């Protein structure tokens, strides 16, 4: 297979993108040559990024609001271990993109398009672009709602988010962009100190982790299922596949770096799971006080929590939502731009100067600007949009996973890195869980009487 074999031919053309990537890889090479424990730490520092970014990026505005809604509606119980399980599913799925990216040096969209043809390629692209655009809208909803707590008008909130997105891109360098965005993404952990301010019932947390109890009092209703789907959609979504694989290619990871890519993914999932559980704990007091939070946005959650966690806590909560929306708007719009460039065969790298990557940066900024503009439409049912976007993400995931499954089992592409049987079984289990959750939700809406006979209400 051409992708993995040594090729002999004319000298390759070298671009600005190649030179930047070569400098990054040179540092990895030097670190590897040094040897010893310090070298391993340095290698980890140099090679982490896409995994942490994708996981913390997926702890985005709608995800954090879904976790907030979960805590406010159900408190400590079933959903805490369930959220951790969703991150385990995310690790299983994202690990495959690490291997695929490092083995082929091709983006996800590019591989589907070229390996299975334009018909399926465009279908996948369409799923991704529609899903990403809807999600981007919700990121701006989160930014708007979070900054609304500080009295910032919606138009200014959208402008701030787009300006930050633009500033992150001005580096024209993958490495710098990655480090700046990572630093911003780590602010997601702000929900941990906020959760501590609510003095959580740690005994209850421990019992929930061990027993998955208490189960929601209302039982298995379509409302509960929406929260289940929203929580899955908050962790496992199509854009993550496309983003992490493209970012791994852009960063220049190779087969030798896969163990670090895996560690990066697990580290990202652990940090993101901590932040997600912390968010559930943050809003649990609202459940304990029996408050109705059905139509709450970030600002309302922060306001409602203010008597419990104080002004500082509420402000940090709102800022956390803003950060979640901004970081995700950066990563999601970049995932769209990567996929567009891969399919349209246009240059697509964060190492590209503006002059060489016009279409890459234009797609990215146009999508962000359009999504930001839509959020300014008055009367949009924002909270419902947020939950539904996560639900749609879950529904679109099985087809994306099947392509991923086929690609990582393609011996011509993967060589020795083809998925082992246990990895296939785990991936199959994730597809079954996602599809079953979707079908149960469908039944609860269309045929509630059938749903009731299965134990639902």
């Amino acid at each position, binding site marked *: *297979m*051409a*992708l*993995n074999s*040594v*090729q002999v031919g004319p*000298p*390759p*053309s*070298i*671009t*600005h*993108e*190649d*030179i930047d*990537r*070569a*400098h990054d*890889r*040179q540092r990895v*090479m030097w670190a590897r040559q040094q040897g010893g424990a310090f070298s391993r730490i340095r290698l980890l520092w140099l090679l982490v990024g896409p995994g942490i970014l994708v996981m913390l990026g997926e702890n985005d505005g709608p995800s954090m609001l879904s976790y907030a809604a979960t805590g406010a509606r159900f408190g400590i119980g079933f959903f805490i271990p369930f959220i951790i399980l969703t991150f385990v599913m995310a690790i299983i799925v994202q690990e495959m993109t690490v291997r695929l990216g490092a083995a*082929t*040096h*091709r983006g996800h969209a*590019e591989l589907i398009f*070229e*390996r*299975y*043809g334009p018909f*399926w390629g465009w*279908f996948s692209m369409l*799923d991704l672009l529609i899903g990403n655009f809807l999600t981007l809208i919700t990121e701006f909803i989160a930014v708007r709602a979070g900054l609304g707590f500080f009295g910032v008008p919606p138009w200014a909130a959208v402008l701030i988010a787009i300006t930050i997105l633009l500033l992150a891109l001005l580096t024209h360098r993958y490495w710098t962009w990655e480090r700046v965005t990572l630093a911003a993404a780590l602010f997601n952990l702000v929900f941990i100190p906020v959760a501590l301010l609510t003095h959580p019932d740690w005994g209850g947390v421990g019992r929930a982790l061990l027993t998955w109890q208490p189960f929601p009092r209302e039982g298995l209703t*379509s409302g509960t299922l929406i929260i289940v789907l929203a929580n899955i959609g908050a962790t496992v979504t199509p854009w993550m596949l496309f983003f992490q694989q493209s970012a791994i*290619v852009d960063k*220049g990871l*190779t087969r030798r770096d896969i163990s670090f890519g895996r560690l990066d993914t697990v580290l990202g999932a652990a940090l993101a799971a901590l932040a997600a559980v912390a968010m559930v704990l943050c809003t649990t007091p609202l459940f304990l006080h029996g408050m109705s939070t059905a139509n709450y946005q970030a600002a309302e959650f922060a306001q409602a929590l203010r008597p419990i966690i104080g002004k500082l806590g509420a402000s940090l909560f709102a800022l956390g939502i803003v950060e979640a929306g901004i970081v995700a708007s950066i990563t999601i719009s970049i995932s769209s731009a990567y996929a567009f460039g*891969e399919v349209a*065969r246009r*240059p697509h*790298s964060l190492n590209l100067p503006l002059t*060489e990557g016009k279409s890459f940066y234009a797609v990215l900024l146009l999508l962000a600007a359009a999504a930001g503009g839509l959020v300014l439409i008055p009367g949009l*049912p924002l909270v*419902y949009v947020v939950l*539904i976007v996560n*639900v*749609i993400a879950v*529904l*679109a995931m*099985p*087809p994306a996973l*099947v392509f991923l499954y*086929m690609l990582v089992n*393609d011996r*011509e*592409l993967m060589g020795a890195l083809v998925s082992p049987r246990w990895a296939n079984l785990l991936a199959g289990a994730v597809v079954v869980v996602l599809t079953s959750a*979707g079908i149960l*939700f*469908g039944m609860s*809406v*269309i045929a509630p009487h059938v749903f009731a006979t299965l134990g639902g209400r």
Partner: protein
Amino acid sequence: MMRGKDQQLQPETAELVTTVLEREQLASAAKTAVPRRRLSPTQLAVLWSLRIYVLFMIAVVVYQVWAATAQQ
């Protein structure tokens, strides 16, 4: 062989790139298409089933949104 402003690059830079990067990592490698693979009937059946599943479920979500809006 370089293009645009990169033509002024030093030979050692070009050597660094070709030494440090795998050939498939170069931007120019993306111009070589990955060979097409025919989908088996089973794979096609799975893909079409999932496609129908997605379209059907999106209709369900739209109905759910409509029903929720009508209730308010």
